[in-house]
């Protein structure tokens, strides 16, 4: 043993080892892309029984906000031609929050809103009665590009999330990050959604411009 003590001077210097390890760590941190499971959630309607005719839903035309996207990716928004989807979220939001002819429940709902949201009700007679009735309908052709469809769907979701988050006093990003796992976040989530169902209808595409 005494002999080995004499050779201590020969031991390597491990001081830079930490630096090397950190360099490696940082390199892999930067280059690794972990597959993320982020996206836009949608719940498809249940399968239709061919023996049962589809329910005949009577809805006033003013309660439906129609967006048609054709095979050239042009938009027809409530009968008006549009080239780009930008700005649709504002229109969606105005439509949802219109309160044209609210019933009793809707009046109570309206009164529960913070003042900033109440101020957005335009009360136009040709737009939706109240958020519970309002439906956004997106219809595409088979030849419509998925990217354009997703953009419109994204904007429709944005309109709803804007309303929800404004109602509970969060930013939209914070609201969307709520997981509903614990009670506090579940309560916030439910408070935002209450009385305003996210009614985005995606119609079956018709056979134009596709296969």
């Amino acid at each position, binding site marked *: 043993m005494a*002999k*080995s003590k004499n*050779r201590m001077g020969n*031991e*390597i210097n*491990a001081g830079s*080892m930490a630096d*090397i390890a950190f360099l*490696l760590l940082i390199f*892999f941190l930067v280059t*690794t892309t*972990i*597959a*993320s*499971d*982020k*996206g*836009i*959630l*949608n*719940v*498809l*309607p*249940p*399968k*239709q029984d061919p023996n049962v005719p589809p329910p005949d839903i009577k809805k006033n035309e003013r309660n439906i906000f129609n967006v048609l996207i054709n*095979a050239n990716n042009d938009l027809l928004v409530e009968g008006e031609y549009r080239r780009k989807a930008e700005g649709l979220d504002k229109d969606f939001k105005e439509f949802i929050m219109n309160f044209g002819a609210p019933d009793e429940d809707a009046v109570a709902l309206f009164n529960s809103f913070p003042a900033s949201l109440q101020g957005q009700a335009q009360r136009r007679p040709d737009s939706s009665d109240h958020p519970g009735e309002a439906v956004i309908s997106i219809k*595409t*052709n*088979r*030849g*419509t*590009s*998925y*990217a354009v*469809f*997703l*953009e419109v*769907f*994204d904007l429709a*979701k*944005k309109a709803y*999330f804007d309303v929800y988050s404004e109602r509970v006093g969060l930013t*939209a990003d914070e609201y*969307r*990050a709520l*997981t*509903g*796992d614990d009670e506090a976040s579940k309560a916030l989530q439910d408070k935002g959604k209450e009385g305003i169902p996210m009614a985005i209808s995606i119609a*079956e*595409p018709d056979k134009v*411009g*596709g*296969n």
Partner: protein
Amino acid sequence: MAKFRKKKSGGGQQIDTSALPDIIFMLLFFFMVTTVLREQDVLVDQKIPQSTQLQKLQNKTLISYIFIGKPKNTSLYGTEPRVQANDVLISSPEIVQWVNQERDKLPEADRTSITISMKVDKEVKMGPISDVQTELRNADARKVLYASTKKTEID
């Protein structure tokens, strides 16, 4: 015993350990290079569209992935968008069977809440997507996640 003692007295020389870190690092490199997080080979083009209203799913085990896009190997599979589930390209009618297989992998309590993450290429038209969705409805897997990445705001 005498033999052993003799050896001990002769082994005073220590092993040179200065090369040890190099060996360890070489091992580290080897494993880092060869490890792939997902061994699934994607056979179709995947340029995921961007959007803003992204939501994250809490439970990753409930997600099954479906890839839709133009096949990478066009000479073998053609240029029309195809659907990939697991490692193979499948046709629409097989989706129901695939969903049921995926569902069987889950614990019984979770089977109803299976979520299908649709990773769809930008270039795909709505036609094939609607076919897939019809099949998913037939399979009663109605929770769908349109996989998307965060849009980088330009304004």
